[in-house]
């Protein structure tokens, strides 16, 4: 590890945890990622590159959840309507309900430009860009959504969204919406009569589309603002970046998570805001768990053969998220995050393009280099989540009470236990040479 932190001179004994040095750094208000200008540049650059496609992801996810809904042949689900492109972000832009972050509320200019021109740099009809695979890849965003849907009981009982989808109340809401949606379509209504569960299950999936869309609607402006602050020279260290995220998490924690469907302009509430589902408990925490930690084993690296036993028997044992993933095979068959990496490739800030040119294969393997940087940046986000949870549930870092400090220590140690698996990349990211 590049920076060796001395065990802080505090009232509690040194940690015996294998990742003690990182725990000390967290206790000192730092992140899992060493605080170097190079790391800061990489993570901020990646936030920017991530934010642009994310601006599309959340719009399209909400478009699918609210407009496309149960269309059995949703061939146009990635062709987002102008209405959703112009839709104001709830928390940034001039018309925001609550303006927390600067920036525009409608689609980011770089996103609009890319949607119009693509990498081909030609103003072709959308469908041609789509067919040429010159587009934002929604597939991985949907995979993240499926991951949140599929993994059960995450952060139970504080996350009530997951359980709500099994209640009769939810099914009654669905029933109402399904009947309205397929009004005048006897075939689908007949099918619904025959197999209601099939339709409820689709609705649950749609609710998660909405959930993830609402989650990312918040993250996109956060990342944009961080990039702007960095460009303005106002964000100068990795812990500062993390603190910004922690504040963002708190500021937005109470944002409602809901699922509305618009049928011929009329709004139907499948999950009303009045259920009290919040951004933090029903979206952010399950998202981090599902996407950063768990997801599903990649076909390209793990065998699904039941006898080989490479797929764990229980969901909490899944550990294939961004914090564990091997980034070197990105770009290879069977590695889904390649889709995200490719999306970010289009929007790298110039300083990162230059930076990658100087290392490894330069432009030849930018996609892998950026995937590694992305991994670093997500370690920073996870650090923010850990520190936010610590702040919310435990004690200040400068608490005087040794028992409180010990509780903090145990919390950090428990978090670090998750990175004791050999697959965890936490040790790799300590070194700048890992790229």
């Amino acid at each position, binding site marked *: 590890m590049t920076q060796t932190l001395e065990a802080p001179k505090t009232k509690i004994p040194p940690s015996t945890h294998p990742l003690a040095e990182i725990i000390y750094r967290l206790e000192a208000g730092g992140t899992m990622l060493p605080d170097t200008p190079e790391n800061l540049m990489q993570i901020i650059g990646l936030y920017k590159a991530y934010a642009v496609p994310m601006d599309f992801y959340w719009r399209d996810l909400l478009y699918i959840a609210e407009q496309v809904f149960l269309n059995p042949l949703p061939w146009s689900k990635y062709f987002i309507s102008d209405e959703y492109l112009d839709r104001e972000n709830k928390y940034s832009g001039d018309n925001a309900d609550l303006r927390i972050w600067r920036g525009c509320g409608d689609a980011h200019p770089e996103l609009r430009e890319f949607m119009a021109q693509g990498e081909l740099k030609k103003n072709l009809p959308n469908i041609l860009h789509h067919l040429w*695979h010159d587009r934002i890849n929604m597939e991985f965003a949907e995979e993240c959504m499926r991951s949140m849907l*599929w993994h*059960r009981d995450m952060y139970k009982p504080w996350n009530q969204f997951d359980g709500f989808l099994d209640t009769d109340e939810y099914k009654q809401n669905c029933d109402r919406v399904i009947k309205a949606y397929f009004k005048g379509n006897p075939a689908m209504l007949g099918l619904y009569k025959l197999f209601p569960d099939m339709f409820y*299950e689709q609705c649950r999936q749609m609710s998660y589309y909405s959930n993830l869309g609402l989650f990312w609607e918040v993250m996109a402006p956060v990342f944009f603002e961080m990039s702007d602050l960095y460009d303005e020279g106002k964000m100068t260290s990795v812990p500062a970046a993390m603190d910004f995220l922690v504040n963002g998490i708190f500021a937005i924690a109470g944002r409602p998570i809901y699922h509305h469907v618009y049928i011929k302009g009329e709004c139907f509430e499948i999950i009303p805001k009045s259920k009290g589902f919040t951004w933090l408990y029903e979206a952010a925490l399950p998202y981090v768990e599902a996407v950063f930690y768990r997801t599903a084993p990649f076909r*390209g690296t793990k065998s699904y053969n039941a006898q080989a036993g*490479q797929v764990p028997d229980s*969901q909490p044992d899944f550990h294939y998220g961004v914090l564990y993933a091997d980034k070197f095979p990105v770009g290879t068959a069977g*590695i889904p995050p390649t889709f995200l990496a490719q999306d970010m490739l289009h929007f790298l800030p110039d300083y990162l393009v230059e930076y990658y040119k100087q290392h490894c294969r330069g432009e030849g393997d930018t996609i892998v280099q950026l995937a590694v940087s992305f991994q670093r940046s997500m370690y920073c986000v996870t650090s923010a989540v850990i520190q936010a949870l610590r702040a919310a549930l435990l004690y200040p870092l400068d608490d005087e009470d040794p028992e409180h400090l010990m509780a903090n220590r145990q919390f950090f140690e428990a978090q670090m236990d998750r990175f004791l698996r050999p697959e965890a990349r936490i040790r790799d990211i300590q070194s700048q040479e890992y790229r």
Partner: protein
Amino acid sequence: MSHPLIQSIWLLPIYTLIGAALSVIWFPGITRRTGPRPAGYINALMSFLAFAHASAALFYAWDNPAVDFTVPWLQVANLDLSIPFHIDPIALTACTVITGLNFLAQVFAIGYLELDWGWARFFSLLAFFEAGMNFLVLNDSLFFGYIALELLTLGTYLLLGLWFNQSLVITGARDAFLTKRVGDLFLLMGVVALLPIAGTWNYTELAIWAETANVDPKVMTLLGLALLAGPMGKCAQFPLHLWLDEAMEGPVPGTILRNSLVVQVGAWVLVKLQPVLALSPTVLNFAIFIGALTAVGGSLIAIAQIDIKRTLSYPTSVLMGCVFIAVGTGNIQAALLLSVSHALGMALMVMSSSAVVWNSVTQDVTQLGGLFSRRPISALSYAVGALGVVAMPPFGGFWAMLQLVEGLRITHPWLAVLVIAVNAMLAFGFTRVFCQVFLGQTTKFTERSPEVHYWMILPMMVVMGLVIHLPLVLSAADVLPNWVEISKDNAVILAWSTLSGIGLAAVIYLSPTISKPVKLPSQSLQDLFAYDFYTPQLYRNTIIGFVAISSKLLSSFDRIGIDGVGNFFGFATLFSGQSLKYSTSGQSQFYMLTIVLGLVGIGLWLCYPLLNVG
């Protein structure tokens, strides 16, 4: 004069090869800034084009005599290697099925592999595969058949190796390649040996030759066995079945083709060679024996599998075993019917089970369950596929099995019984999987399992329609057994065997009183089935062990023995670079000078007698 569409039928492999070649553009090493999906669209389009051509040609060729033509390839010494094409309705039907299923598999792949970055490689290999199969079916020569089979072997290796970062994929690809290669190798021996005896490789001419051939039975037996080995490998018959199981590591759309079509090309060659094989009763009996062994063994193994893809790979071997029995006993019609009904039914079952795996993550049937209400389309597809394969009236499999049993009843009654028993076991096995996956209690893995998106559902529904309508199509084509002539008893017994298999499985796997997972009285027996009669270990301890040990021994012999003898005589150590050591400070010119001096020396030495004389 035949129709231009038939004349140009040789284009079928070319279409997809063009697609395969174009795919290279989207290899991620080449196209970096945009994604690889156009490769998939192009190949699917090419497949569809081939399908359209094949089906249109079939329309014109129906009820017409076969069209033969040759394309020159290589003429060397006394060997004429022109490619003979033999276009008859059967070949065109086969092409239509191949191209059609390929197209559907590619559409399925667009959905199934939507998160995969390896589209270019995957689709180009799929297209390569399709080209190989079309070429095999259209040409009329054992030699070119061999070439096609070899290309398919290579294709299997590469297609299986799509996810080459994954360790089991690598061993699977290796085993598939080597096992199939062993089959191909014997086939090559047969091909080489057949020519001097028969004087031709053309199936049609071989059939004519076989009618009057008078050959040494011993030679014919050896030859026949060698020729049989190729189809054995391709059809995944014992003991060359291992690859199909390991091939399950590969991507699903490839599995659809492998389980339904690729195994059939082995059957195709087998059927074509039947007249030659029939020259030796031993060979036919061997074929029957292997088929019967695979059918019984495979169905037992299938029942003990917990991996959903493997519960489908062994039944494939089983049905191919039935085809071997059919060909061995001369029931060609039954063999073809079995092939068709199996191809469609199996494709449907693979699609359905893969759709389940796609978003339920596990392939372990014991971890699945209770999906019927959420995923009725997948469930019904699986059920229809299974019914289309086993003998369940009125589906296709029933007529195929009936034809087979009818053919066996008089001549080989015990084989007829065996086929009926195998059918019951198949029905049992499929029902077991159906109960475990779609019925019963949900698990954590299946609590959130929505039906998949339309790219997968649509091809599934099309194939489901095909399976359901297969009997009508067959009856329209007049290839179904005549209901008036057949024994009603057989039909009843067959249907009864299926129903009893289904019923028994349903009772066992739906009854809450029987504890799951179901255990056989003997754990070792259960393991024997679960681990494929320990065939991998058997290989490891026999052939692989032999090759490994002999290569090690020979290599040490080479190092110590032969090399040692050479060194012992001391020439190497004598000089060991001392006297001829080059001077490190020397310039190039110096070396050239040495060489020139050397040459002068040799010249002088040569001229020495001359100088003497002078």
